[in-house]
């Protein structure tokens, strides 16, 4: 089987994730969509690793996972904090940046 198919799948997932980030309003869902994009990237890395016959791609994917975990921890903490003060998990409600 052509390994490129995984790449196409990765692109598809990434795109779906990107749309989700933009379209969904629930901060947690937005977060999950970001995770989806990261995972899509990971899939691409793993596939590259296979195509090149080299484990470097897998290591990068591993690092990505760690960074993603960190990001999730902090991000979710932020969501909780925002929820605590604003009683809402909608990203649209946290729009004070413009003022």
């Amino acid at each position: 089987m052509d390994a490129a198919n995984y790449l196409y799948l990765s692109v598809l997932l990434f795109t779906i994730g990107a749309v989700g980030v933009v379209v969904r309003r629930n901060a947690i869902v937005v977060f999950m969509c970001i995770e989806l994009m990261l995972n899509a990237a990971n899939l691409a890395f793993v596939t590259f690793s296979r195509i090149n016959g080299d484990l470097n791609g897998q290591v990068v994917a591993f690092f990505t996972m760690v960074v993603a975990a960190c990001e999730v921890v902090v991000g979710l903490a932020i969501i909780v904090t925002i929820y605590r003060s604003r009683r809402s998990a909608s990203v649209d409600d946290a729009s004070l940046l413009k003022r």
Partner: protein
Amino acid sequence: MIELALAVGQTQTPEAVMFWILAPLTVAAAFGMLLVKKAVHSAILMASVMINLAIFYIAQDALFLGIVQIVVYTGAVMMLFLFILMLVGVDSSDSLTETITGLRPIAITAAVGFGGLMVSLLSRATLGRSAVGLQVANENGNVKGIAQLLFSTYVWPFEVVSALLITAALGAMVLAHHQRLQTRPTQRELSTERFRGISLANAAGLPAPGVFARHNAVDVPALLPDGSPAANSVNATLEARGDMLNSGAFELGKIDTSAGEEK
């Protein structure tokens, strides 16, 4: 299309069977994430995407990553998501109508453009190259191979990432930490407050939800002796979140008339 057909034709190995079954499922689950209203459903769909990905990793000779994906990602991270969801309110459902004008068409057009361009680029880049495969690299086992790289070439990034992880943990703690402005009232104080308060009505505690009402669900207010709903019988969080059912609908004898809710 011809290339796609060729690719389909080439996919004959078991891996191909697996791919052509799981890949559509993965994409469908991902799509579902966008479309379902409830965040919990999204989370579950996300988990399924992740498990599928883990299978793809393993299929591509990335055994370690596949396991990590399941254990760390699907197991830990997704559970964290669920926890937070619970904390925020598991029942809350999103409205999918767009409030920012023009955002959705832009997003979709951009996404389609993005996907199309990427696919086009990928097809240019990979066309006519076959994969090398990881048989050589994984000679001593996938885990050993990765470990060798991690602790030699990537030892410095590895350390940095560990620092990052600790920092993130600390950061999360700091963010989640809630400074109390007053000392926590003791049992005694609470009790005094109940009895010395403005009214004795709450001395025996707040009314439980659902009492005398048609439903005894937690989000249905109790009915007072005169038949009007008791707003304070329902958890304030539910009310704030808008999850409380309209008590007017359960009011005795006034089922069809709408009555303003007492505060």
